[in-house]
């Protein structure tokens, strides 16, 4: 009797478990189902829909499943995917992180496709990190650097007719804007890419190399001066001191309408307009101001590469997706839609004339990268810079906090 009871219950439990995972099985017949991972806010939803529809129309045998990934915890997630037996087929990875994946052996070598993709004039800032020992693993997708996005109405109301040209003007204008409900600038406390720019402006760096060893450099006088400017600017708005620009998404904060400026890639304007169509046409751009007029501030050159995991079950189809995304048509479309720098220099003409891109191009002249160590991704993973910024903004002695953060960077880069 009892056996029957147990057997019955076990069968029930097994049925539950089986039916629970039934939804996940790929069907063998019908089109190939490709999974593509795109990072949150890389491109607009509209762009993805247009791309998917067009792609599926041209490739009747492929069914695209585009999944949006959060930046938080993405390192663990991509690693788990690369190590799995049935990975997503195409993954977007940041240009500061692609090197470690390329070196891990989990990414398909696409060297023989370089020519097919006209890789000769790829942007070096995207192509180099995706290349290890002469083999191309990461395919450049887009690049961008940060500019200042501003709300034209708020500027007009404050009587500011031309964008600030120097850091001092910028502080003065922002203070003028920061009245009542309006935030002069929404700058979260942990926007470390922006801090990196201010530090470079002062002649400092995040870490410096001597011989074979790297050393954290946040505690140099130049870097501390950069942090001090960040602190003064940050105080002219209500950005949370203990969070970064993704949490909450700063585009959504701006979309509410009470923020005069944010520091973002120009494409952020599209995300804002998507969230609040009333702001269409009211968003202006200017390069991040430098210390002297006529020389814009230094900025971090960001961007993304596309990779195909070795564990992808549909590598040929995956390559078709990459070829489309990295090819002329969609590069031009994306550059226009998102105001990104296309992955090839010969396509740069596509974005000429757009206000956002003009601002970005002015800044791009002073574009810089994070320290070129394969361990840099590990620094970003635990990010002591963010913690240092929060500490310095909330009353801790900046020099002391900078020393701690620098030691932590030194240690991670040395391991």
């Amino acid at each position: 009797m009892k056996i029957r009871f147990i057997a019955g219950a076990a069968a029930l439990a097994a049925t539950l478990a089986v039916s629970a995972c039934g939804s996940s099985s790929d069907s063998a017949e019908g089109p190939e189902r490709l999974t593509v991972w795109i990072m949150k806010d890389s491109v607009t939803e509209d762009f993805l829909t247009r791309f998917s529809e067009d792609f599926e129309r041209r490739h009747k045998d492929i069914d695209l499943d585009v999944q949006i990934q959060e930046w938080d915890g993405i390192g663990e997630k991509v690693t788990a995917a690369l190590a799995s037996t049935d990975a997503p087929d195409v993954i977007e990875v940041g240009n500061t992180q692609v090197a470690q994946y390329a070196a891990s052996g989990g990414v398909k070598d696409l060297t023989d496709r370089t020519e097919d993709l006209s890789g000769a004039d790829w942007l070096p800032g995207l192509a180099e990190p995706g290349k290890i020992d002469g083999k191309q693993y990461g395919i450049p997708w887009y690049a961008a650097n940060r500019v200042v996005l501003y709300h034209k109405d708020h500027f007009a109301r404050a009587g500011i007719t031309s964008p600030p040209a120097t850091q001092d003007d910028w502080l003065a204008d922002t203070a003028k804007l920061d009245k009542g409900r309006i935030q002069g600038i929404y700058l979260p406390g942990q926007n470390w890419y922006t801090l990196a720019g201010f530090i470079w402006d002062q002649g400092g760096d995040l870490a410096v190399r001597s011989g074979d060893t790297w050393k954290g450099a946040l505690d140099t006088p130049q870097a501390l001066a950069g942090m001090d400017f960040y602190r003064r600017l940050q105080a002219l708005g209500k950005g949370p001191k203990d969070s970064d620009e993704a949490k909450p998404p700063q585009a959504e904060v701006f979309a509410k309408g009470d923020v005069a400026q944010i520091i973002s890639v120009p494409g952020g304007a599209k995300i804002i307009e998507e969230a609040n169509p009333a702001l269409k046409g009211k968003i202006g751009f200017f390069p991040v101001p430098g210390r002297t007029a006529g020389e814009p501030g230094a900025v971090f050159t960001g961007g993304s590469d596309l990779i195909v995991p070795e564990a992808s079950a549909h590598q040929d189809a995956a390559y078709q997706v990459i070829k489309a995304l990295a090819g002329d048509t969609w590069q031009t479309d994306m550059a226009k839609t998102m105001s990104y720098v296309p992955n090839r220099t010969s396509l740069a003409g596509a974005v000429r004339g757009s206000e956002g891109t003009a601002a970005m191009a002015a800044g791009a002249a002073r574009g810089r990268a994070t320290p070129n160590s394969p361990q840099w991704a590990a620094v970003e993973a635990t990010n002591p810079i963010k913690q240092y910024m929060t500490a310095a903004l909330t009353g801790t002695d900046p020099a002391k906090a900078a020393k701690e953060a620098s030691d932590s960077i030194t240690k991670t880069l040395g391991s």
Partner: protein
Amino acid sequence: MNRTSASPVTHARIRRLPLHAAALLVFVLSVFPVYWMVLTAFKPTQDIQSQTPLFLPTSVTLDHFTKAVQADGFWLFWRNSLAVTASCVLLALIVALGAAFAVARLRWKGRRGFILMVFIAQVAPWEALLIPMYVIARDTDMLDKLSMLTLIYFMITLPFTIVTLRGFLTAIPVELEEAAQVDGCTRAAAFRRITLPLLAPGLLATSLFGFITAWNEFAFANMLIIKNQDDRTLPVWLSSFSNVFGTDWGATMAASTLFALPVLVLFLVLQGRVASGMTSGAVKG
């Protein structure tokens, strides 16, 4: 006369005043966070953002719940969580019942060793096993499968279930079963007809504990479900929800409320039995 008889009562009241103040404090402190969660979930956004917090609802809105429920795949993840949790609890109960019976009612070689194993399994460091478990799941083709999660949750809740059920079983006099057997029942029938009903509170208490553990689990769910996003569970969804909605506390609290709801309802309905069941299990354990 009247005064003299009233005064000791008043006196007693005054003496009990600190006690009642303490009781009130404990009540408020334990309830407030939950109350605040539910209240925020129902408040219109402008009330949430008011500089002076409003401690009582002035007007009620369902906007935040709509937003949470309409977020991509909410019902799907709800169903996944429920399926995984229910199957793991059921599985653990059945397996634990057998083991608890063997330990409490039968005499066999290796019994002490088995009990020791269960005790040690109770303190197993599950978070430490994330990577090995990932590797094992991958090598046996169990990645991206809810059944793997079910098995892991089953194993996490099993030792506690065995120990508690054994406590309950020991508390039920074996004579009752014997009497039934004298009346002509087989041993199995005696167990099923006599002991099982008496065991009900114990089964309830342990299954609730298992339910909470599995319902809450995040680390394995996050690590083992990679590509099949439709197979995510609620905790994973809730964690990305707070990423997405950031300072939209209304929606976040609505999502948290929906997440807490099944457990709270189960608990409040079964409150008395669970509390007593839990302790008698613990006492015997």
